[in-house]
């Protein structure tokens, strides 16, 4: 009897949690008819914001990948004093409130900031804000993925005559690619949703710095339908990215070169 009650409570809790998480998302799609929602996507405010968002997010992701990958590899493969402090530093923007990130970017890159640049209010500012808040998600995952690569495989590659660059591209990168792709997808999604740092550091100007999330905020009291439509679009894109991550993590070809098969004979 008591067990049945307990089981009932657990199921009730499960139902409440799921309903609570799903309700706002369902509401976005049911508040107005799908036809009207889709029609709003042709609104120039939406298309302008989409272009700004895509442009800035793609540039930011390119920066994150090209700079973040080698940086993550160094942090993952080298052991040195202060390494964990550096890793913590990389993770810090992840837990910082976006408004703090915005203030920090202004204090660093503002006209009267540390570097005295004219970046605020430009599309570059949006890109920097996105890169600042999104890169830790990629870096963290990349460090973990590189750490999982068996150092003996790297050593074997080197003893067989491959240089460090060739080893990195032919051995390390293929082995870590599942984790890297998952991290990149997460960073992409976070970048696309960036709001707080952007509005403080880059402002909001249609066609220049107004990204999709900023358009949601700007249209909230002007045209609620447009705000809903943009929100629906962001929900769909985010869901697609999340699904991609799940699929990528399931398909992990690198697992076939299992650690134990090689590691046992050498390291133990």
């Amino acid at each position, binding site marked *: 009897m008591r067990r049945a009650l307990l089981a009932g409570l657990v199921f009730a809790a499960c139902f409440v949690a799921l309903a609570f998480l799903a309700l706002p998302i369902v509401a976005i799609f049911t508040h107005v008819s799908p036809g009207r929602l889709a029609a709003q996507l042709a609104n120039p405010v939406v298309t302008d914001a989409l272009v700004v968002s895509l442009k800035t997010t793609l540039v930011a992701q390119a920066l994150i990948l090209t700079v973040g990958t080698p940086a993550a590899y160094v942090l993952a493969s080298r052991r040195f004093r202060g390494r964990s402090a550096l890793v913590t530093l990389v993770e810090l923007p992840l837990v910082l409130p976006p408004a703090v990130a915005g203030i920090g970017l*202004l204090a660093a890159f503002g006209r009267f900031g540390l570097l005295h640049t004219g970046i605020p*209010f430009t599309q570059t500012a949006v890109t920097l804000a996105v890169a600042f808040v999104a890169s830790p998600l990629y870096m963290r995952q990349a460090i973990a993925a590189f750490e999982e690569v068996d150092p003996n495989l790297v050593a074997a590659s080197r003893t067989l005559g491959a240089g460090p660059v060739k080893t990195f591209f032919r051995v390390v990168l293929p082995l870590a690619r599942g984790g890297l792709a998952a991290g990149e997808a997460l960073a992409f999604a976070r970048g696309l949703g960036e709001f707080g740092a952007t509005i403080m550091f880059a*402002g*909001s*100007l249609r066609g220049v710095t107004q990204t999709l999330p900023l358009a949601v905020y*700007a249209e909230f009291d002007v045209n609620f339908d447009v705000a809903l439509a943009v929100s629906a679009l962001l929900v769909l894109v985010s869901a697609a990215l999340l699904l991609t991550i799940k699929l990528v993590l399931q398909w992990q070809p690198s697992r076939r070169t299992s650690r134990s098969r090689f590691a046992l004979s050498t390291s133990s």
Partner: protein
Amino acid sequence: MRTVTLLAVCALALAAATTAAARTSATITVYAAASLTDVFPQIDATPKYSFGGSNTLAAQIQLGAPADVFASANTTLPQQLFQKGLCSQPVVFTRNTLVLIVPTSNPAGIHSVYDLTKSGIKLDVAAPAVPVGSYTRQILKNMALTSVLSNVVSNETDVREVLAKVALGEADAGFVYSTDAKTVPGKVTVLTMPAWAQPKVQYGICVVKTSSNAAAAQAFVNAVMSKAGQAKLLAAGFLPRVKPKPAK
């Protein structure tokens, strides 16, 4: 048995939480235009305040936000709420003037509103839906200067965002109320705009219909309209709610 006790405790906690929430509603919540951020708590420090762009606040009230009083930087928004039966008939409680501000360091060398036509200037304004953003466009239209809007670098969500970005020196110039400029002395230089070009900046206040404490809400409105309340507004640089008749 123990589960039942647990459930009872949960129910009690929930009941306690709701009554606590009900009790706190004795203090009213005032939704007010960002430009009133400094002066309203001087008139009455007891209410809970939510300051922001009047348009955002009005939209929140329409979506059921728990406001008791709505004080807007224009009369259109409270009037719209009144027509929808969401608030009482608004009354004008103060007026304001628009000014152009530049950072004290004046990096772009702006000495008059006509300097805004120079290309490459970073002009910060509020979005058109925000009252001050609408007034900004009106004054520029009155002066046949709408072309300077091509120098706009950002459409902010309320007047204090414009103030902050100019005071910080990130924007070269911005349009705010004269009362906002007074709150950051030494950080911005005020360039007054000609009286003939000024739009009619009237602030409207109303009691929200869904208020659970309409009496206290009305008392707040009365306090704002009272001699003491008006004196506080005047001291902060706001204008008397009724334009004085020109002396003959």
